[in-house]
């Protein structure tokens, strides 16, 4: 075993409480482990299940020491909401990737007029040096008539940018559903495929 057969990878997963950020991060870490990697996944949620910001650091490699991704060293940012992608974009290295759900979730402090939402968040992301993959996961979940599919769609979107096959991620998601909610396994396969397809057909704009 050497560093080349086990490249290290830092994935920062961000979103809002309730979107499934933690689950997505766990799937990534699990698949890495199944492929012989070491992995650490941090889940500092704080009070985030009350509509706050959620971040999870996933670090994989031959041997991972610190569970923390240092600022500016994320290889990939997987953002479940576009303003969150803007918030965390400085964490991404210059040759990194940003896979982002273009959905806008407006918090009460914004709708109440205390703060404003970035005017053109996608343009801000596009000005980054990283490759940007914008996905309208909300539209896809709407088509599939289930709002809880966002994390599966986003995992599909990032699945071709990881050091293991996309099918391994898909199977891990399905495996989790087969234990708890088998009736949703096929729907999640569709969501995964749709996320993957959208990410692959959209070059960096």
């Amino acid at each position, binding site marked *: 075993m050497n560093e080349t057969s086990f490249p290290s990878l830092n994935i920062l997963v961000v979103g809002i409480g309730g979107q499934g950020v933690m689950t997505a991060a766990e799937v990534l870490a699990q698949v890495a482990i199944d492929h012989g990697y070491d992995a650490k996944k941090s*889940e500092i949620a*704080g009070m985030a299940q009350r509509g706050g910001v959620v971040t999870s650091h996933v670090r994989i490699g031959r041997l991972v020491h610190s569970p*923390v991704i240092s600022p500016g*060293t994320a290889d990939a940012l997987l953002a479940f909401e576009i*303003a969150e992608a803007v918030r965390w974009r400085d964490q991404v290295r*210059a040759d990194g990737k940003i896979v982002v759900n273009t959905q806008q979730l407006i918090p*009460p402090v*914004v709708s109440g007029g205390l703060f404003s939402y970035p005017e053109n968040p996608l343009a801000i992301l596009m000005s980054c040096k990283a490759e940007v993959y914008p996905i309208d996961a909300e539209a896809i979940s709407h088509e599939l008539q289930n709002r809880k599919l966002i994390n599966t769609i986003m995992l599909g979107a990032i699945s071709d940018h990881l050091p293991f096959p996309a099918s391994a991620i898909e199977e891990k998601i399905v495996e989790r559903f087969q234990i708890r909610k088998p009736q949703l396994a096929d729907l999640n396969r569709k969501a995964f495929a749709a996320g993957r397809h959208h990410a692959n057909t959209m070059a960096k704009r």
Partner: protein
Amino acid sequence: MNMTINAQKAGSRLLLSGNEAIARAVWESSVRVCSGYPGTPATEILECLAFYPDLYSEWSVNEKVALEVAFGATMTGARAFCAMKHVGLNVASDPLMTITLTGVIGGLVIAVADDVGMSSSQNEQDSRYWGRFAHLPVIEPYDSQSAYNCIKSAFELSERFETPVLLRLTTRVCHVKSLVTIGLRQEKDNPGFKLNSSRWVMVPNNARRRVPLQFERDRKLKEFSENSDLNSVEIGKDKSIGFITSGPAYLHLKEIAPDASILRLGLSHPLPIEKIKDFSKHVERLVIVEETEPLIEAELRAEGLSVLGKDFLPRFGELTPDILKKSINQILEKNAAEPKISSVTGTDVFPRPPTLCAACPHLGIYQALSAMRNKVIIMGDIGCYTLGAGHPWNALDSCISMGASMGMALGIDKARGKSDTKKAILAVIGDSTFLHMGIQGLLNIVYNQGNITILILDNRTTGMTGGQNHPGTGRNAHGEEAPRVDFAQLTAALGVKKDRIKVVDSYNLPFLFQIIRDEIRISEPSVIITNRPCTLIEQFERLLPHQVLEDKCTGCGNCIDIGCPAITVREHAQEEIDGEMFDLTFAAIDSNACTGCKMCVSICGSEAITPIVEMARNPL
């Protein structure tokens, strides 16, 4: 949380959080009794333990009781374990300071989780101080495998020296998942309680005889620490700095300095002074990397060692790799290369603070309190309802410690200054917090005849930590039926007059407002108990979502003032009435978030909010 870890075979390698790994190791160590009170980041340890067979586990009403339950179990020779967050050990400190004198027979491990970085706490205190204060050994794991191993070492140490052991955790141990190889459960007898009044009855005469034994134990523990493999030395290629560290800071250090020489303290109190002196001979200088206070640093300085530490490193928050790198470069007078980051422009993004849920029963309370803001002083407590201090309510004036709202409200009442004389004083507390430490405060208000209105927000769960049971839920730690406290009867028994106790529906806003307004006018203790369940528990019933009929909405903004995240602003406008300009806010409801609680309906004057009868069926 993985609830099936207990079913996994010995030898399996699993991705576990520190909390999950601890629970497994506790079970494998044949612990008989486990207790705790929910508190981030320690909550999941007890939650996991509740799924294990062969042991008794409970949510205790508070950490003091939890520690007493665990200690009592050890008197029979059984092993016991309790878990709490850092501030919980403050509550448990009374028994702690005496059980260190008696010592234990069966092993006792107290896991105390420090919220380094304060992701979900009111302070950031360093629990390692308790080891010094209470003469107890302190063990510090750094990841899940280490936490698992440390539990086993801690029980051995506890029984060998007949002492309670503190397992000091931090958020980065509790809430990081990493690989753990699990093992077999070891069976252990418990011989039963034996009378020994000179040991268990800590009257002064007996206690005085235990003090020298405690010092003797300190001496033996120090000797043990010198030779223990919990404290490990790695002499690396780089000997310019010898790092002395403990907890997850060790991993951050390994990340930035893989070739460094490191002495990692797994048993960080008592310190292995001779081992440290020996280590210092192999390196050019010593740097102490510890979260958060300079304890090791101060003790080593007192031993006459020349060390660097908090002169360069921050005294609060995590010592993450980037922070460590900067500080170490400063020590070595090196310039660090900044990482090449992706973004080129700076844009500040709005904050996204946590907020109350759609249909949260606390919303009604804060809508009412916010409407009487100028006339009330509101002492707050610890729970989801602390969020009432934030936007848009700004209707909570304090948050200090569990149950503090009661005592503080009485203090303000008795001290009333000029600006307070005409104000009503309220205390707001949740069900779990009230049972944890609020009962005595209320008793004190009644006994000392305070002019306070107490709001007990009974949402039938411990909400902020994710919905744990307590004596007010009618369920125990395993979800099984248990006797349920009747809050109205309890407060009556404390001496609150029966007609000053009101149980109210917090969704009926006009009625709620009227009750609060009436009660604050009466100059004796009154208690208002709300009875709607938390929206995140199974008792909560989702009903048809509602909508705002645009042609009927007058833009009064009443519904928006509730602060329900399902109610959003559709449009701002201004209208002139009799030459005066008025701001209008027209509302909309997010039908995906709305649960049909009708709180907004109860204060909509124009009947503009109605249920959506025809809706697309959602598969979930």
